Structure formats: structure tokens, C-alpha cells
């Protein structure tokens, strides 16, 4: 299949970006979306041009490195996938595909489609942990039984890959889904109770400081989350926050 691409090109953080157009012919529908970009880059390199910079690593949907806003949607048209799991069979011959970086004040562009998500790390550093040292003398793992339902919910929240799709999808660039997933993981476990009040307060404060917007309950984040992180987590975080 033949396709046309409209890709955001931006030399570096300070320069002004713009869309560039490219055409690719004879793309195999079995290719992944990122392999299609590999093909484009191979062509750009062979004609002496600068390849399109984009973030990617594991290419199996778990590391959270890949991003991309494809035809107006974070990680493209499918639900429950990351961009690296998207395949060209999802598009048609003759399509024009628009590719932009994840846009948010707290995710400044580094180059082309690569953005800086260090703000997410800083939120985690502000409280996304249980304060336990590696002593080797912790109590036996089975000492506290945890109801399966709680453990499963905690796991579902912990499945967040930190890609930032929730922020990119939100009209306010809010990071509530991301933060609430971490808050919920610990709030649902007895180990996390001890410092739960401090945790939620600090993480929310850091989130605000990073310049993420407010939540207005549109639910776009849940729709675009490749891991299906539920909005319920935001409700749980709000509850934790009020109690705190």
C-alpha cells in the first residue's frame, strides 16, 4: 500500500517546528507502525536527510517509551495498544497519516517527535514508593494475607506504563490518571497504608508544580490509556486526598 505522511519536525527544544510531508510506497500491511517509520528513516538517510527522531525501545507495548499522536489520537486509532503495537493493516492504501508528538506544557519537545517526560519521574520521586529498606530481614511475604480482589485491583493500577498518553489525550493536559494509578496501587495494599496521606499530598503537589492541568472528568485519558487504567483510580485518589 502507498501512504502519505504529515510529520511534525522540530530541530530542538527552542526552535519552531512545522509539519513536513512525505510519501511512502509499497508498505507491507503486516509492518508495525514504527517499522514503517524505520523504512521512512532509511530512505531519508540514504538521501542524506535527517531522520525523524521518535522514542521507542521494547517495541512490545510494555516499556512505555513510544508515544506519538497519530491522526489526532494518542498511540493511534486502536484501543489498548501502544504505538509500537499498532500495525499498518489498520490503515488503507492512499491514507494520509498525521504524526505529532505528545503535546503538553509539562512534556517539552526535545526533537521532532521526542518529548521530555521527566516530570513523571519527579512526581514518582515525590512519594511513589513505600519507605522500606533492603535489609533482608523483612517479614515473610505470606505473613499478611491480602484479599485477592484487592491484590488484583492493585495490580491493574500498577500496570501503568508511564507513557503519558493520558496527558496527551486530555484537553487540560492533566496527569491525574497517571498519578492516581500509583496512589491506588499502594492505597489498595496494607503495606502502603502507613504513609498513604503523605504520599497523596506530596504527589499531587508535585503534579501541580510540574504544570499539568486539572481534571474535568472528560474521561479521554481512560479511553486512550493503552493499559486500560480505570477512571475509578482518579476517584480513589480524590478520596485519599480529601481524607488526607
Amino acid at each position, binding site marked *: 500500500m502507498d501512504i502519505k505522511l504529515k510529520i511534525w519536525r522540530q530541530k530542538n527544544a527552542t526552535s519552531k517546528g512545522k509539519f513536513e510531508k512525505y510519501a511512502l510506497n509499497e508498505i507491507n500491511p503486516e509492518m508495525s507502525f514504527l517499522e514503517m517509520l524505520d523504512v521512512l528513516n532509511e530512505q531519508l538517510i540514504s538521501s542524506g536527510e535527517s531522520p525523524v527522531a521518535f522514542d521507542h525501545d521494547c517495541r512490545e507495548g*510494555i516499556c512505555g517509551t513510544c508515544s506519538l499522536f497519530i491522526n489526532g489520537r494518542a498511540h493511534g486509532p486502536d484501543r489498548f495498544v501502544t504505538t509500537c503495537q499498532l500495525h499498518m493493516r489498520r490503515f488503507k492504501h492512499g491514507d494520509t497519516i498525521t504524526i505529532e508528538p505528545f503535546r503538553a506544557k509539562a512534556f517539552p519537545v526535545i526533537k521532532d517527535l521526542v518529548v521530555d517526560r521527566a516530570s513523571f519521574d519527579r512526581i514518582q520521586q515525590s512519594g511513589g514508593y513505600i519507605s522500606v529498606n*533492603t535489609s533482608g530481614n523483612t517479614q515473610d511475604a505470606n505473613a499478611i494475607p*491480602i*484479599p485477592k480482589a484487592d491484590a488484583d485491583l492493585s495490580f491493574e493500577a500498577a500496570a501503568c506504563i508511564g507513557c503519558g498518553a493520558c496527558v496527551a489525550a486530555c484537553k487540560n493536559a492533566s496527569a491525574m490518571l497517571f498519578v492516581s494509578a500509583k496512589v491506588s496501587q499502594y492505597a489498595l495494599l496494607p503495606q502502603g497504608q502507613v504513609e498513604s496521606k503523605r504520599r497523596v499530598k506530596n504527589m499531587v503537589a508535585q503534579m501541580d508544580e510540574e504544570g499539568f492541568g486539572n481534571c474535568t472528568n472528560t474521561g479521554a485519558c481512560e479511553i486512550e490509556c493503552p493499559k486500560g487504567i480505570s477512571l475509578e483510580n482518579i476517584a480513589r485518589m480524590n478520596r485519599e486526598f480529601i481524607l488526607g
Partner: protein
Amino acid sequence: MSTAVKTEFQLSSGVPQGPLAEKWTSHKSKIRLVSPANKLKIDVIVVGTGLAGGSAAATLAELGYNVKAFCFQDSARRAHSIAAQGGINAAKNYVGDGDSIYRLFYDTIKGGDYRAREANVYRLAEVSSNIIDQCVAQGVPFARDYGGLLDNRSFGGVQVSRTFYAKGQTGQQLQLGCYSALNRQIARGKVKMYSRHEMMELVIIDGKARGIIARDLITGEIQRHSAHAVVIASGGYGNVFYLSTNAMGSNVSAGWKIHKKGALFANPCFTQIHPTCIPVSGDYQSKLTLMSESLRNDGRIWVPQQLEDAQAIREGKKSPEDIPENQRDYFLERRYPAFGNLVPRDVASRAAKERCDAGYGVNVTGDAVFLDFQSAIERYGREQAHLQGSDESNPEATMKLGREVVKAKYGNLFQMYEKIVDQNPYNTPMKIYPAVHYTMGGVWVDYNLMTTIPGCFCIGEANFSDHGANRLGASALMQGLADGYFVLPYTIGDYLADDIRTGPISIDSKEFEKAEHQVKSQIDRLIKQNGTKSVDYFHKKLGRIIWDYCGMSRNEKGLKEAIEKIKELYQEFQKNVFVPGRANEYNEELAKACRVADFFELGLLMTIDALDRTESCGGHFREESQTPQGEALRDDENFMYVATWEYTGKPNSPKLHKEDLIYHDIEVKSRSYK
């Protein structure tokens, strides 16, 4: 640009005296300590933030050391440990099926085909229980049963259930656990985190590792970082094959740089080809995707018994459902009745290759076998119907129940498969084929996990120590966390005890100057070179050579050919690679070129090592050395050693040193899973 290296090594593993079960405890109580006040004066660099590096950085900081941690990813959380799926082993014996530290030790040594160091493996088994306790305390949400206790499953090469898991995302959950511990120390100011930074060179001063040269991958800035010790935790080198289940950025460079500075590299030819991966579909392919070994708990592997059926399936004239039960060859169950589908990875991979080479492959390329969940879905369905008191004889209803059980166990893996292949594995068998997954070989380390360069340590997949010639499933996560949480933080003190009066290490010395100059001139050469071929062009070609000649099956003629081909291609790479852009900017092609240059030299060493080891063992299968039934045939008399290679300045002619392997507490037998 070789640097002078010591010519004579006294390879001493430093394994403590005393009975096996007491070695680690007595070693820990005898090695030297650094007092809390003195730890504050000592800096440690950790390269890599996966399970090994992340947990080491966090624990060293908890102890009081000042840590600088580096990763090339945009966040420490994204290190490739995150992609591990199936689980982590621990000798907890919660299931009560007779598991013990000794049994985990025994299985690991046997699984590694008697090519791992006995004392290190015993220590690994010993600390395995602590890992689970630690992770649960950190809030890692492992799978639990309805009683609220931790659930276990079984993995290849063992006859007990000792694998703890979190769906098919165990690596992710453990990685996020150690990332959280790391974050806590970053918040305390005890770890300074450098993400999007690549280690380019090791700096040695007066024979000791004293720092690194790093490149900021965003600005291209070359930086000097000093420390009293350097810990390499940069993972495996599977990407030398180009196509592997590793992440695109995974590379050998940190390990290779220290090798070129004097660290011996051990058993490079011991690479693991994992049996259950999604098959290659085209030449544009950039990576391969693993389907967790845990699937072999419930999936049965088969090909048609008749060649005509296999051909009909390949041509799309028949589907797997058309092949009746008695016309299917469940070849693992047939060949290895005692372990069935849960034989170790090397054995399963070779058996699949054997069937496909004989013409029984089931996809267009002929390189695929079926992994079928039908009987598990039926079995679970009946079980659930019975539990719920519903009609067990209604096949549709029971199948639905069965699918739900399978979904709860492997849902994310099934979804992953469906997204890539566009087929629904609940209804039709998966097609799978072996792919490169893990590297048992790596930097040689002693019992303290120190390399042959004083002050330079190596942990996790990057070192060679625990898995011999084949790693068992769910043991990589165990080793990474054991090294990082429970071994290195203590053993490093034995070395650093000498450094309490050293004071800060200056970055203005001639050694730093020289190392920085070396890095800058390599980058300069790559940028200025007006070549015509991209980095990927060379990487793909190199990978193909290694896969064809140094993959699942190796022979003398092929390996000799491979060595010549690699040398030739490397020369062309040095003359004709094209790196666009500039040095002082975000430049992924440049980063890739530096990594691929190291893969060339490592690839050469791999083939040289494979040629030298004329026996078969574990993942290293030399066609000249097999039993009449086609099983790997070891040669203990001549090869019961760790092959450790010294860099001589010329990648073509490394020097071999041997560490003899001596087993006191385990009987060395031929490895059988029949």
C-alpha cells in the same frame, strides 16, 4: 586505540572456604565493612537501571554511599527488565511440593548444563526467598489465591512450582518496585540520576576503576564522572543478532568498553534462544516478540505428523483444526515424557528447529510450530463448570468458562499476540518459533562480583556467573535482584574499605583527559566519514551472519566462515557507514553506530569462543558433538571450565584463560529430561 592490558591474570574466583551452605553467611560476616560515616565519603557509579542496576543503586544509597546512576532510556523505569513476563523463582516451598534451597541450586546447575560456578549459584538460591519478602514489602502486587496468599506456577526444567508472578508482567512489576526504591533515594539526594546518558568509556587510574566518560544523548555533551567504584549493570548482548526479543536500545557497549580496558569476558558463545516467540514475518522486521515460557504450563506444542498436512497448512489449504488428534505430533511430549512441554529452553528450541528443518513447519516461511491451548481451555472449563455446579456436558458453555480462566492467567500475552499476528489464540493455536532472548555469557566476575579490573563490578545479565550454558525460566529476574539487593551492596564494601581515606576523585587527571579524547575522536571519525550505508544496514547483515552460523546450531566450518565474514563486514563498516547529523545534538544514528561497532567486535569473540568449545552444552550446540538421538553431548574431561577471554588489542586474536569448574556438592551427570 587499544590500551595496554596486564598480560598475566591470576584468575581467582575468591570462593570462600567451608561447606557450601555456609559459604555466603561466613563470607558476609568476615569481609571488611565500611562504617556509616565513611560511606558518606564514597561515590559509586552504577551503569544501567534494570533489576540489577536499579536495585543496586537504591540499596547502595540506602546504605549511605553517594550514587550516580546512568541509563540510556528516558527514564530509569524503562530498562528492559520491564519486559520480562513469566515470573521469578524462589525456594519458598509455599506449595509444599518438596522445594528447597538445595533443589533450586540443583535445578539451576543442571539447567545450566554444569557450566556455572557452584558457590555463586548456591548463594543465588539462598537469597531467593528474601527477594520475594522484599518485593512484597515494597508493594509489588504479585498474583494471589483466594486465601490471600501468594500464588505459584511452574517453569521449564523443574518439577516443582516455585515461580511467583504478576500475570504476564512480572518483570514490569519488579522493575517498578526497584524503580520506586530508586526514586526514594533520588528524593533523598542520595542518588543522582542521569537518564538519556550513555557510558562511552571506563576511566582507570593507578589500575583501579575511577570513573566513566558519558555522553548526554540529548545535547551530545561528553561528560566526565568520577567515583571510587564503577558497577556495570547494562544487561545482555542479544542484539548482536539484530533480531532478538531485546529492546531496540539494548547493547553490549558498557561491558565491551570495560573488556577492552582489561575485564575478561566469559563464555560469550553461551546465548539463549527462547523457544516461544512470534515468528519472523518479513525483512522489514525490527524485533521479535517473546511469548512467555509460562504459556508452556498450559500450551501444548505440536506439528502435523504428515508432511502433506504441514504443506497444506503452509499453503493455507488446511487449518490446524483440520488435523485430527491422532495425526498431530506433540514432539516435546513424545521425546521428553518426564518434562513434556516444560523442558528447558535450549532443548525445546532445538526440538522445534529439528521438526521445521525436517519440513514440518506450519507457517509460510516454514519456520513455525503450533502452541495450542485447546486442551487447557477444555480442562479448565470442565473444572469451572464442576465448581459452579453447571452443566459439564455443554461444550460451548464449558469452553467459555475455560477461556476465562486462560484469560485471567495469560490475558495480556494473548492480546499481545493478537495485535501482532491478527489471529485470535483463544480460537486457533499460536504459531511460534525460537528467537534470541538472553545471554548467559558476559563479563567475568569473582565471588564478590568484581571483574578483573579492581573497583569495577558487574552484575545481572551483564555478568556470566549463574546460568552456565543455559538459563532456566524465571531465573533472570531472580539473579538481577539477588545481585543488586543482596549481594553487591555487601561485597563492594570489601573493596571500598581501602578507600575511606582517598577523598573525592578529581576529574582533571590525565587519565580522564585521555579517555575523553578517545571517545571524542571515535565520534569525530564516525561523523566525518562520508559513507553510503546506514548503521542498520550493517547491523542487519551482522545479525544474519551470527544467526546463521552461531545460532541454535554451530559447526566448525560454519564458524570459520562466520569469522571471515564478520571481519570483512567490520572493515566495510569502518570505511562505509554513514552517520547523518552532528556530534553535539540528539543523534540516534550516532548512538547506534557506536553500539554496533562494539557488537562487531563482540560478535567476533562469540564465534571464536564457539569454535574453540568443540563440545555441546546447554544453548551451545556443536553439531560435531551429539548423541545418536541428537541430544547435546558434553565433554566434561576437556571443557569443564569457564572460557574467559582477554582483549589483546586486536579483536581477531583474543587470549584464552580458563577457570576450572569444580563441583563438590552436586554429582555431575549427563543432563536428561526424558
